[in-house]
């Protein structure tokens, strides 16, 4: 296992390096000038020359790339043109937002998707199965932008005065800021603690601020449901097809022949094995959610990785684009690795090599 881990980590280095180089070059190939994006279109040529010199953008691209790679090797991802803050600081602020949203979406997707897939497999070739498949296909096909807007309109506007009313956007009500839990404890902290404090629900629990927890949960419902539709559909479909395959195996037939109830056969004997590929899918989905929640974050005004990347691309904020893309790529690589490890734990027959 150790050799496997080392080999996988070493193999990921050229992948990440490739991603850094490609992102670096692509960002600079984008039409547009970060000077104008930053200083406005009335910026003079002299102002832009100053800006480009200050940011090192007047150097040849290979020189800029070399300097950037050197910085990355020293864990320095540069600073945002627009915000004048280190990219690492921005990441520490924005990544937890996306992590919280992604985990919430994935929980919904798993809690609904797996039972839906089991139900469909169990009622294979019936109307129930067909309905479940249709629901899954609709989930995959539905434009997230439209779904999010519809959910906002229904729950935030039409039902706003009812108990079902939900806030349309943001992470907390306007005017509320969550105090970091360690400040409630009277401690000054940074790093991991500050990261955790940006996970509002966990922070609220640690700070014993239940009103904040409730407020954050209410704000999380609509974006999490919106974001969960695609992974839900994928998990449901994978569960269904994997369970169908497993239910056809000899050992399941044997279990039935032994007189075991259908519930035990499906849930205890078949499902455990059928879930192995679903675990892989869940891990991959988490990776893609972490990097790809742009639409959901924009609709619901949640300043996470996706929205920050989108704004940075529009503003030609190269450091943010490069840094965030690199971190998303690292997240994807790590999650892939963890998924493989979890797979071997779940199925001892599988050996990593």
């Amino acid at each position, binding site marked *: 296992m150790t050799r496997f881990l080392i080999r996988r980590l070493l193999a990921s280095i050229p992948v990440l390096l490739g991603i850094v180089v490609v992102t670096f070059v692509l960002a600079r190939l984008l*039409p*547009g*000038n970060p*000077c*104008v994006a*930053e*200083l*406005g*279109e*009335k*910026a*003079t*040529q*002299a*102002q832009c*020359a*100053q*800006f*480009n*010199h*200050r940011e090192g953008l*007047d150097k040849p691209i290979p020189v800029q790339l070399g300097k950037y790679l050197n910085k990355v090797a020293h864990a320095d991802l540069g600073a945002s043109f*627009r*915000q*004048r*803050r280190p990219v690492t600081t921005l990441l520490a*602020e*924005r990544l937890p*937002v996306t992590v919280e949203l992604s985990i919430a979406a994935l929980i919904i997707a798993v809690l609904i998707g797996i039972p839906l897939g089991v139900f469909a497999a169990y009622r294979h070739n019936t109307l129930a199965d067909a309905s479940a498949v249709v629901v899954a296909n609709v989930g995959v096909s539905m434009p997230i932008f439209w779904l999010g*807007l519809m959910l*906002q*309109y229904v729950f*935030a*506007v039409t039902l*706003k005065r009812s108990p079902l009313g939900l*806030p*349309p*956007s*943001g*992470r*907390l*009500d*306007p*005017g509320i*800021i969550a105090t970091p839990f360690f400040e409630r404890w009277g401690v000054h902290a940074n790093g991991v603690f500050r990261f955790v404090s940006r996970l509002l629900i966990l922070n609220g629990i640690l700070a014993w601020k239940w009103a904040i927890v409730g407020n954050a949960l209410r704000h999380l419902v609509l974006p999490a449901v919106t974001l969960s539709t695609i992974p839900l559909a994928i998990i449901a479909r994978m569960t269904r097809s994997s369970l169908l395959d497993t239910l056809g195996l000899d050992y399941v037939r044997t279990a039935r022949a032994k007189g075991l109830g259908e519930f035990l056969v499906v849930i205890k004997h078949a499902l455990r094995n059928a879930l192995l590929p679903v675990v892989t899918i869940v891990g991959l989905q988490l990776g893609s959610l972490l990097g790809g929640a742009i639409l959901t974050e*924009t*609709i619901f*005004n949640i*300043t996470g990785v996706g929205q*920050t990347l989108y*704004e940075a691309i529009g503003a030609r904020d190269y450091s943010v684009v490069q840094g965030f893309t690199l971190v998303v790529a690292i997240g994807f690589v790590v999650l892939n690795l963890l998924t493989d490890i979890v797979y071997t734990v779940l199925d001892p027959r599988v050996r990593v090599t």
Partner: protein
Amino acid sequence: MRTSRRTSAIVMLSALAIAAAACGSSKSSGGNAASSTSGAAATTVAASATTAGNAATTAAPSGGATTTAAGGKLLSYDESAKCGQKGYDGSIAKIEAIDAVTVKFTMCQADVAFPSKVAFASFAISPSEYLDKAGTTAGGDLVNKPIGTGPYKLKAWDKGNQVILERNDDYWGTKAKAKTVTVRWQTEPAQRLVELQSGQADGIDNVGTDDFDKIKGDKTLQLLPRPALNVFYLGMNRDAAPFDKEEVRQAVGAAIDKQRLVDTFYPKGSTAASQFLPEAIPGYAKGFTDFTYNPDKAKQLLAAAGFPNGFEVNLSYRDKSRGYLPQPTPIATDIQAQLAKVGIKVTLDVQESTTLLDNAAAGKLPFHLLGWGADYPDATNFLDYHFGKGAKPQFGKGFDDIWKDLDQAGSNADPAKRDALYADAAKLIAQHAPMIPIANGGSAVAYKAEVKGGQASPLSSEQFAPMDNGKDQFNFLQNGEPGGLYCADETDGEALRVCEQINESLLGYEINGTKVVPSLADKYESSADLKEWTFHLHPGVKFHDGSALDANDVVRSWRVQWDAADPAHKGRTGEFSYFTSLFGGFLNPPPAK
């Protein structure tokens, strides 16, 4: 930089001479501002600029230091010797604290628009001690935790989420209605409307084009159109054939159906442009229209110019949506079709945004689409920038008769005379037709119906203090997050709107208008040659940290921007773009790269 003794003596004698002359002659003054439309009213003021408002001292600075009533030295910076010299492109010659409540600006040349510029948010006043303490680090506390004199102070900036302002209960003016204001942002117009409809926002900026009718039909909401301070135009370079012929340029003007473009592609509240100046800008010639749509006349003009069958030309534009050009490609395509009807065969040439701006400024585009939005609400910002003597060669060689009108208007304090000169300039611009103004792009702000005092400022500088939603907290939703809250080093409206609630300038703009009104300065007056402008501070104003506003704070706030070598000349980007844009260059500019 302190003045030398000799220079100070000259300044003192000059000031006394001017004061003596002022006592016996009429001067331009504002400050009560009731009739000012062009930056300087015509009221005669008898008081001396050096004595108004303060009994402690009447002497002009000497050696840069005179003791005020508070016991502090008065600041004074005299760079008059640099005016017009190599290495200094700026228009400010001197800034001096005459006494604790009087500040005088001396310009290198007449600047009739000075009050209008001073009112701009970029020239807000900060405490001099805070500038020295917090302004020396780029992106430091001055940018993230500003201190001002405004009706609101910054409570918290939750980056990425919201800015929370709390009422300044020691405000020198009328206290704000809402105890707390939150400013949040959302880039999508549809989402902004949902927030308003849901009740999470009390007001939203930039209503989507398709949402105007929806809001008007909703009794729980109110729509306030925002007067346009921009113009979209079709530019022609007279140095490039066939636009070297005036008949050709006039033919293009007659060939464009402006109203059709506005009706088809622009949001409600937009208007067809009758001239280059938008209606909200002082100097707009009421009742004048430059071109009437007349394709037959266009064909006649082309024939007279030697193009009976028209000609072929590239039309350059950028595919970037702006307030004055909401749908670039559909509009360009429609213009192409309109010109084809008179024989002008247009090939659309889409250029990258910055490239197009650079090419236009360099005079490389014979035929192009572009626009302009006001930096400050004065005709000089529109007309002089584009058609004045120092204008870039965007339209080729300038026109002497237009220059003459603009020069005279720019050095005349009489609003009526300025208006007459600008009206004449409008006719000359229509005659020479360096460009065809097409549309003024409107926009709107929306509020909940119960909000009293909702505003739609043409300058996008809504003041939250008078807005009343009947609750302790007022929530506003704009397009984007501020980059920083130090107005001096910000250019986008999202930042300026927020920092204007916290920091104030010597003058301000009237609510929902462009007229200059008193703010931190109760009144001001200028010399007859419009080079010297003296401001008298409102007494008893305190900053949010409890310190008292005095003339030194004003001088220091301006100096920090003016002098690129000042330790506090850092800001967020260090560009201080509006300072250079409105007042030329810095002192001690960094070497050109």
